[in-house]
């Protein structure tokens, strides 16, 4: 790749993007910052509150509980979706007419509006009219995700696996396809067993796309709102109230703008911080 030339006029190319994104990002962010340090009782009357809301949120057991649930959820779905997605990608045909069929069918869940995903799983898992609910109860297990926290978690996780594993599959599959045949042939000649082929050829070549997959799945699962909201409404109780659901409850439900804004900023910072940590760790590894 030839070196880039220095050209300050390139800024002109970027202005439209900056204008639009800044409009959408900076102004709302300022609003949030503004709310986060003030108290209001309506009528546009504001009182300076300093860092009170931040302290309140950071010490609130409710926030701690949501955050903990969020981490647990994200950790579980990453632990399932990444290995599962790689496994599916590994067993997909490498060429032929079935490739297109697989890709199209697998990508389908990614293009369904998120609330439809929630509604679909609601209908699918309901113990009385849903297929899944009927089957599980038919096996003698008492299952009702609207009543039991464990069942609610199970359903939410299964839904997320259903919804997003394909993203990992597609990424991993694209990564696998970029491995030249010669690598597999050389491994065959060297007498490598399937596990060695995976460990020394496929996994190293997948590292880059898997980095992206982990990052994306981390980000999106950490921001998840619509699907669990439609499926369980955050319940039963607060058992599936993740960070975004809690935030919307506080901001639009209770209209506690100060605490909601403070929580928003803390939330955003956590996502940014974790993404940055992920990113630098992986980049450092790549440089070696």
């Amino acid at each position, binding site marked *: 790749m030839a070196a880039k030339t220095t050209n300050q006029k390139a800024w002109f190319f970027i202005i439209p993007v900056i204008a639009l994104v800044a409009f959408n990002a900076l102004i709302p962010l300022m609003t949030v910052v503004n709310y986060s340090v003030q108290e209001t009782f309506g009528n546009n009357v504001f009182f300076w509150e300093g860092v009170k809301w931040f302290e309140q949120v950071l010490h609130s057991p409710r926030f701690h509980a949501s955050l903990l649930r969020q981490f647990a959820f994200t950790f579980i779905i990453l632990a399932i979706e990444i290995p599962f997605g790689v496994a599916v990608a590994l067993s997909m045909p490498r060429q032929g007419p079935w490739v297109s069929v697989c890709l199209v069918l697998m990508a389908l869940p990614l293009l369904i509006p998120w609330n439809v995903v929630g509604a679909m799983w609601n209908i699918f898992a309901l113990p009385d009219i849903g297929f899944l609910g009927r089957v599980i109860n038919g096996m003698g297990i008492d299952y009702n995700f609207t009543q039991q926290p464990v069942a609610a978690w199970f359903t939410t996780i299964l839904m997320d696996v259903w919804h997003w594993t394909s993203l990992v599959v597609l990424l991993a599959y694209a990564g696998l396809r970029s491995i*030249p045949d*010669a690598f597999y*042939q050389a491994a*065959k*000649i*060297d*007498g490598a067993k399937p596990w*060695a082929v995976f460990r020394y050829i496929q996994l*190293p070549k997948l590292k880059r796309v898997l980095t992206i997959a982990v990052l994306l799945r981390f980000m999106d699962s950490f921001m998840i709102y619509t699907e669990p909201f439609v499926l369980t409404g955050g319940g039963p109780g607060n058992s599936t109230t993740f960070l975004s659901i809690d935030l919307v409850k506080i901001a639009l439900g209770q209209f506690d703008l100060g605490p909601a804004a403070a929580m928003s900023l803390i939330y955003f910072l956590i996502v940014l911080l974790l993404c940055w940590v992920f990113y630098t760790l992986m980049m450092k590894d790549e440089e*070696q």
Partner: protein
Amino acid sequence: MSTITLKDLRHSYMANPATDADWALKKMSVEWSDGGAYALLGPSGCGKTTLLNIISGLLAPSEGSVWFGDDDVTHIPPDRRNIAQVFQFPVVYDTMSVYDNLAFPLRNRGIAEADVDKKVREIATMIDLDAMLFDRASGLTADGKQKISLGRGLVRSDVNVIMFDEPLTVIDPHLKWVLRSKLKELHQKVGSTMIYVTHDQTEALTFADQVVVMHDGTVVQIGTPVELFEKPQHTFVGHFIGSPGMNVLPCQLDSGKPIFAGQVVETEGGVSAPDGTMALELGVRPEFVSFAKEGIPVDVVKVSDAGRYSVVETRHGESHIKLLVREGESVPADNVHVRLDPAHTQVYADGWIVS
């Protein structure tokens, strides 16, 4: 170590090959003697790589069989054939060190670690990689990586044949000859059969004792570089090897003598074309054409200086005849005739030599 024999081999990538063109490899029987240095030469798409993959076992032939010595290995997988292959683009295991790369084929075969260590160090010295034995393989340059690929073949003491599939494609030009002479040297030291696939005649002619020329899925000639040059068995060989290639001129046959431009062209021995021949041609290399007082009348079209000699392009009617003129000799201006050396003029019927 043993002779490799291909018997009545034929291969097609299609399920139901119908026409001749559907066969990537047309019927052939070839024998590769033990310890030989072979080059498999031909243009892209002529079936070289297919043939190579059939010998290594990456591909099962549609018809025919492959024998290593007295064993039929046609359906034996590559890892049990005792072969090694170096690919066009370097294949190294990125996450491993150079040492682990070289040790990989041995460890996969369950060889004791002490023996592995001994062998790896021995081979590393042979291919000049001992200084970077514990570096990560991904950090090496392209030629270093190709050496690793080669090394993974050399560490195995049971290897029958080492195959090279255009191994110098991604190597810097100034390193090509270094690696090539290294290969030649290794061949003498190790003594295993080597088959070197390339489309570059210089590479083939400098590396090999025997050159196998392929064209359109067929082996057109097997011979030493000298044989290929002096007696091409097929007009394609004449064209493909040598620069400029052999002159090919249409001719007729009259009572055992070829006729070109209304004149009898002298050749060694009598000529008879097989029945049903479609096209009859004369083949003579530019090296064996000279200007003469009488002979075939031609017009000089172009003279290009190629250093120690000039390539002169002449024309008789529709036919172009090239010849070489040494530095210092002059090109006649008018009333030009050329003469073909009878000892090196061959007659070809539908491309194949006749005598």
